């Protein structure tokens, strides 16, 4: 583990990503302290430019809402939806992939056909339709993102299980008489965790992008301020007040970039032998 930490921390990009994400996380957690008022509340004159008014350093929008508050509360939504929908998708993917990979035969066939189906249909369109029909809410958004993002995990886990099942140490576990359930849990799954963690970290980033796209299209939760919504709402003011859409976009960009950097750092640190292949 210390080797892993050392390799991860040697990666400057990953460390930068970790620091950015930590900062965003702190802002998200501290949002109610920093901005006691609701981000929906009209607190000042409309269209205050950024860096003009000390009290509203990020400016206000066309209704006089504090953009800074929107950014902070938006961070809560983005990070929460990213984390929860990924967690759901990863758990579902592991369960389905493990069942398919270990059981094999018709179970594998059936589950893989279903997975392929979900992978074939366009993900963003599917998410849009799901949220629209289930009516937009935090629950339906999380569900929609999870539903469109579990297939890669299932395929990955299945692939890992199929490979690992043939590995000699798993065969050895069969030979010494371990039960299949135990073999899956103690022999196979721990060895499949690295790629799952890497994929999951990248999925969080994508989930945040998808959430922002949904709220941009007006499919966000009406009770929660979101970066995508802020950009969508400021579209009409694009010519007059471009900064309004600029800042939430930078927030999304930074968050997603930070998570991708962390994901790449994890990838390099968890697969040290892969990184050296072909690059030297």
């Amino acid at each position, binding site marked *: 583990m210390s080797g892993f930490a050392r390799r991860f921390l040697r990666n400057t990009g990953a460390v930068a990503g970790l620091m950015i994400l930590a900062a965003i996380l702190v802002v998200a957690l501290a949002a109610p302290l920093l901005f006691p008022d609701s981000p929906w509340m009209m607190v000042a004159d409309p269209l205050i430019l950024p860096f003009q008014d000390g009290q509203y350093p990020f400016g206000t929008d066309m209704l006089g809402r504090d953009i800074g508050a929107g950014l902070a509360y938006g961070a809560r939504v983005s990070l929460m939806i990213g984390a929860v929908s990924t967690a759901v998708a990863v758990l579902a993917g592991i369960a389905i992939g493990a069942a398919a990979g270990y059981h094999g035969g018709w179970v594998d066939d059936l589950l893989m056909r279903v997975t392929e189906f979900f992978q074939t249909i366009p993900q963003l369109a599917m998410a849009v339709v799901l949220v629209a029909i289930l009516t937009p809410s935090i629950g339906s958004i999380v569900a929609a993102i999870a539903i469109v993002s579990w297939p890669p995990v299932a395929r990955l886990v299945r692939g890992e299980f199929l490979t690992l099942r043939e*590995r*000699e*140490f798993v*065969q*050895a*576990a*069969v*030979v*010494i*008489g*371990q*039960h*299949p359930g*135990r073999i899956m849990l*103690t*022999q196979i799954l*721990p*060895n499949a965790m690295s790629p799952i963690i890497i994929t999951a970290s990248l999925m969080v980033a994508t989930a945040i992008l998808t959430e922002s796209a949904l709220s941009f299209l007006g499919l966000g939760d009406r009770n929660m301020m979101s970066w995508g919504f802020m950009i969508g709402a400021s579209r009409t003011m694009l010519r007059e007040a471009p900064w309004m859409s600029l800042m939430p976009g930078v927030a999304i960009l930074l968050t997603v970039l930070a998570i991708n950097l962390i994901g790449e750092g994890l990838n390099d640190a968890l697969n040290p032998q892969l990184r050296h292949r072909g690059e*030297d």
Partner: protein
Amino acid sequence: MRTMPDHSTSADVAPLLRVRDLTVPLPGGERPYAVRDVSFDIARGEILCIVGESGSGKSISAGAIMGLLPHHLTPERGEILFDGVDLLRLSETEMLARRGRQIGMIFQEPMSALNPTMRIGDQIAEVMAVHGTHPGPARRKRVLDLLDLVGLPDPATLQHVYPFRLSGGQRQRVVIAMALALEPALLIADEPTTALDVTTQAQILALIKRIQARMGMGVMFITHDFGVVADIADRIAVMEKGVLVEQGRATEVLDSPRHPYTRHLIAAVPTGRAVPRGVTVEDAPLLAVRNLIKTYTTSGGPFRPKRVVPAVCDVSFEVRRGEALGIVGESGSGKSTIGKCLLKLQGIDGGEIVFDGQDIAPLSQAAFRPQRRRLQMIFQDPFASLNPRQTVGRILTDGPVAGGEARAEAMARARTLLDLVGLPASALERYPHEFSGGQRQRVGIARALALQPDLIVADESVSALDVSVQAQVLALLKDLQKRLGVALVFITHDLRVAAEVCQRIAVMHRGCLVEYGPSAEVLGASREDYTRRLIEAMPGRAWDARRQPASAA
């Protein structure tokens, strides 16, 4: 430790290749230098074998000559004089003109050495195109001649084929054709037969020797196999950990090695004679396999027909308590399939596997599980057979715990087991990656023994190990088998190794058992054509015959 190069063959004429004090640092490696102060000569028309175990720096020497070292390895000192020119001082452009034209190279892995998306004729023609030789129709003609030269059938058709259609041996012939296309003065062969079966290896060795003699090339032949060395070398250079420890004429080095490392290596090579041993063997069979059949079926789709490939057809044999049976065959002979079937890691398609009076073939996995402890296995790959995320203690105790034993009790016994296989008790807390290949294989043996089995199946259990480590593990296996009276099914491609360990040998060929009998009979007075071919293909047989009195003493 440095030995002065042997100048006896090159005193009067300048040698084709003269390597002096070649030193390549190894940044971040386990030793400071990949190769250090290496000096040797190769004369025209001479085969120099460079022998050493894995990591001895043999391949890096070859890479330095070709100028094909990876970016992080740069020669620090020394010179490589080829035809009087120091290759280390040449620019990349000047090297390009020599690679393929004056120096050819053959690699270890024929399966991956050819471009999968380019027809083999085009790959051979590319050498000529790059160096601007054989223009026009002469080039095609040359390709056909080369394919014919390396003994491939029907060159006219074959040149249009993609590599994936060829077997390993055939691909290696294509690589050789490419390396020889412009009749280079020097051929570097880096373990060219290691990935091949014995009979294919014999053919490829004969081919290299024949062409070398005809073209008068100098050959630098890198190998770890003393049998191959004995068959092909004019001179030998022995490398250990990046240092060239001994070199000289082939007969001198093989028959009277001076350096302790060379002696140690040579002593570790099995002689290929059946060794009669005092093992008490009962008459009643512990395991009786009757008419075993196993076929593989490739999965078909609704629009694709299934294909059925027979892997084992109608094989019968017996193993008695305390006996070691060797199952010998080339790749694809079905020997490993038999091992997997015995342990019910694979279902069978016919026949009986009677273990201690009970046919275990029809048992379900759950019904068989309580009996598993009596039938254990030692695997091939010491790196893949241990779970990288478990400590050795965990690995050794998982089996007994699955059988209902308490973890603490099993742990106490694991300690004695480690002692038995020659590992310290401190190994219990450590993870597999902290051990060498040989040590891991000892852990694998201890894992099998932890369940006190009656029969152990060892599938190529020493073939991934360096020859000196292999000798130690074999000695351990023999000793344990004798002391514990456990029966052993020893699956291997190497007749020599089988002869060392087993009282009886079964020879497999294309899924069928072609010969089965006491080791001395199978090796010494074989009745079957195929077995004789296999024996004749074993490299270094002439040397074996010379060596016989020494090892008997």
